[in-house]
């Protein structure tokens, strides 16, 4: 895929600068930094997270290696797999995998999303003639056997619960879709498809059963199967690759129809200025804000992985994403974090704090769209200073290669030295 509207050099430069920023967030054990998510923020824990931040990074490196043959990306993938294996618990879950709820293990859909990307990374490494890092196979096996089948499989519903303490009747279609990718990928990797077939069938059926058939949400999938009144376009889009995979695997038209319907839902949901609303409701106006930059990129990535990304869609959403890149090379996380549609000179602080767990999706998208233009060498990331509002008070967000700081005239809200697990000051919840 190549964008007809954006100059290739602009894409390559954006990718290179983002790469440079991501390197400033790398330290022992993984990628560090605060998290701003759909459901809240995790500003206190800034250590390595094993949530979906790995997904876009692993896929992005695989994409860039496929384009350039650069062994650096293979080395990054290998290190990532080692870091992930070291972060796994014996029950198959991963430490600090809950993104905005960190530091908590068992994040959904984070863990299966990362494992699905890890399986794709394994395939890339194998294709490149590399041996998988030690512990990778055991990690995948433990995740599938212990976490998915032993702990999360619901034998009555015949699908996967979201976590151990889920209501027994509840499952999350976006998480089930990621789990399907893990099971299908793992079955291909190990040749153990027959044994996993009942789980794949059950999960696939539950995914289809949860899709909205009619009304304003038609084609969308809810965040939870018991929520019949709202859908998140980005989380719904995350189901696309699994649906497309099922279609390829079975040849059944029901998967094509489900994919078509979901693509239609996404098309109807998009905002005029680019990006996708936060949440679409069946019986009331959509909660458009905040529009997450990474979610827009992630939606395009999901469409690409399902073979449904078009030039028009790229042209509609890519400028919105690129416009959010800052001097540091990072991307602003969202627009409208304060839920106010009126444009303010000082945005909400949550809009500007860069988050690896969203930047990775942009990284992957840029890697997909960069069709071979050489990416400028990653130099040092630039410093950035942004006027923001924190709980209604004027403040300034500053970031450079070594730190992030959010402070007002009389109060320091947040101060974190990159590479450390805990901020030295944190007054944000």
């Amino acid at each position: 895929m190549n964008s007809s509207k954006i100059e290739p050099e602009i894409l390559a430069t954006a990718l290179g600068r983002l790469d440079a920023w991501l390197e400033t967030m790398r330290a022992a054990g993984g990628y560090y930094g605060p998290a701003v998510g759909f459901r809240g923020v995790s500003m206190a824990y800034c250590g390595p997270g094993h949530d979906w931040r790995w997904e876009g990074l692993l896929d992005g490196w695989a994409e860039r290696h496929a384009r350039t043959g650069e062994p650096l990306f293979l080395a990054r993938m290998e290190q990532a797999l080692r870091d992930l294996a070291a972060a796994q618990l014996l029950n198959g879950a991963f430490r600090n995998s809950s993104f905005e709820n960190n530091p908590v293990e068992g994040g959904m859909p984070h863990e299966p999303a990362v494992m699905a990307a890890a399986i794709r990374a394994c395939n890339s490494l194998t294709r490149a003639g590399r041996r998988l890092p030690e512990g990778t196979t055991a990690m995948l096996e433990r995740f599938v056997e212990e976490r998915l089948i032993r702990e999360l499989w619901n034998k009555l519903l015949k699908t996967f619960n979201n976590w151990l303490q889920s209501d027994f009747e509840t499952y999350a279609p976006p998480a089930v879709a990621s789990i399907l990718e893990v099971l299908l990928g793992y079955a291909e990797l190990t040749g153990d498809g027959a044994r996993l077939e009942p789980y794949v069938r059950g999960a696939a059926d539950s995914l289809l059963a949860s899709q909205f058939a009619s009304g304003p949400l038609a084609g969308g999938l809810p965040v939870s199967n018991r929520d019949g009144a709202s859908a998140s376009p980005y989380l719904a889009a995350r189901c696309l690759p699994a649906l497309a995979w099922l279609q390829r695997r079975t040849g059944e038209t029901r998967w094509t129809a489900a994919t078509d319907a979901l693509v239609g839902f996404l098309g109807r949901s998009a905002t005029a200025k680019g990006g996708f609303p936060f949440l679409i409701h069946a019986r009331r106006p959509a909660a458009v804000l905040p529009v997450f930059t990474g979610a827009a990129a992630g939606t395009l990535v999901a469409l690409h992985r399902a073979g449904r990304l078009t030039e028009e869609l790229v042209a509609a959403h890519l400028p919105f994403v690129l416009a959010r890149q800052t001097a540091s090379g990072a991307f602003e996380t969202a627009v409208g974090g304060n839920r106010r549609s009126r444009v303010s000179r000082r945005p909400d602080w949550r809009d500007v704090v860069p988050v690896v767990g969203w930047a990775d999706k942009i990284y992957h998208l840029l890697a997909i769209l960069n069709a071979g233009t050489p990416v400028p060498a990653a130099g040092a990331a630039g410093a950035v200073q942004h006027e923001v509002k924190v709980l209604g008070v004027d403040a300034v967000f500053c970031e450079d290669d070594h730190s992030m700081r959010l402070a007002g005239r009389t109060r320091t809200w947040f101060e974190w030295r990159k590479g450390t697990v805990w901020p030295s000051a944190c007054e944000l919840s």
Partner: protein
Amino acid sequence: MTRGTNAMNDQAIKKTDAPEQPLAGDAFLALLERRRSTRMFREQPVPPEMIERLVRAATLMPTSCNRQLWHFVAITDPAVKVKASRLSDAQQSYFYDAPVLLAVFYDTSLETRNPCSTAQVTVGITIGTLLLAAEAMGLGAIYLGGIRKPDGIRKAVGAPTHLKNFGLVCIGYRDDDPPAPNRRPVEHVLSYNRFTLPHERYHADIRPHLWKLSQVADFRDKLLWYKGVHIDAKTLHVDSDVRSSPKFQFMTGRLGVMIGACTRPRVLDVLSFNGDVTFQLLNACGGQVEKLYAYDLTPGIARYIVERFRRLGPAEVVEPLVNVEPETVQIPLPDGHVQVLSCYERLEHFEDPGPLLREMRRVLAPGGRALVVVSNRFYPHMYRYRRMRKKDYALGRNWNRGPERKYEPGQLARQFREAGFRVTAVTGLQPLHLKLVAAAEGFLRRLGWHGLADRAADWRLQRYATTSLWRYVSSSLAYELIKD
């Protein structure tokens, strides 16, 4: 199952010709002694004949005027289970794991004016008999009465409206070995000719924070094994994972900052219970600490922690500690041994937290920091008022944690001062005005002003922790302490 009613009645009124059997009293009492509520079941079906024998035993029990207005529905079909669960809002794992759910119905319409509620008593006798009969037949069983909407069970099985559901008896082959629960001594519950209640027992009932330390320890020990999570991938009750709650997030963050300010500190979690705080810290910064001590009152709790952590990963830095004396708080650590200390809603177990606070100070190194989160008496915890209104004898007792005394901020400040701590910060968690904003949010949604309601929700979420005066009417108070 249908049986010949007339034949049964004939059998009932006919005087038995069988020779009198000696009453196997000891065997029966032994059966009572060994019966436990079973919460984990094997995936092994129970033959219909056994279910019929169980119900036969239950129907031998007396009913008022021998009305026998009961009916039992054995639910074995997973689809019906799912439907019953959905309609009744029952959220226990054994609902799903038990091969048989025996729904107990009774037509109470004929006995509505009976002052002793004989219909309800009849059902109680019946359910007790079912539990005993299951034990006698080598089965495990538990009565599931914690169902929010028992009428949903009726709807799920298609029972008529005049039959009232009294919960379910979950039956199957036992896959657990729960510890024996403590029972009150007979002299505490029996009096002759004139009602008497020992002073000690009276206080324990209405003011459980007056329990002796050994009583607290026993309660917490059993509670953990009955309601614990994460062991062997089994969750018995669907309680949300508190570690994702804003309160826990706040606490972890503050502890993290304290840990980050030291070089490989030794950290102590006081009254660690299921080890949530310890586990959280182990995951977040296990490599940054020299030792993570999880201190609690009983060896059973220590065993739980070892078991839980063993199933999750290597945890060499974690060391469970058990209280030394049965009736005295005594942390088995030398003076000044730890640099960071946490105590998460545990002072509430004590009428006088002084001894615990002094012990906490003793083991803290000079300059060491502590984070103590305590429930605030000035916050209108609604469940307490509901219990008062309903004259619930367990007033003030939170059954998910143990005795629960609420302190006033002034009392706490004095306690900390007397124990030798200096308070460096006090943060209120979930202040009262958030409740008011939440109510306003609901009102706005009813008006259809969702945009404003969304902003109110966002405003509320960002102000969970406060250092303003609102903190004195917040649900919990987080004290950051230092030992000078």
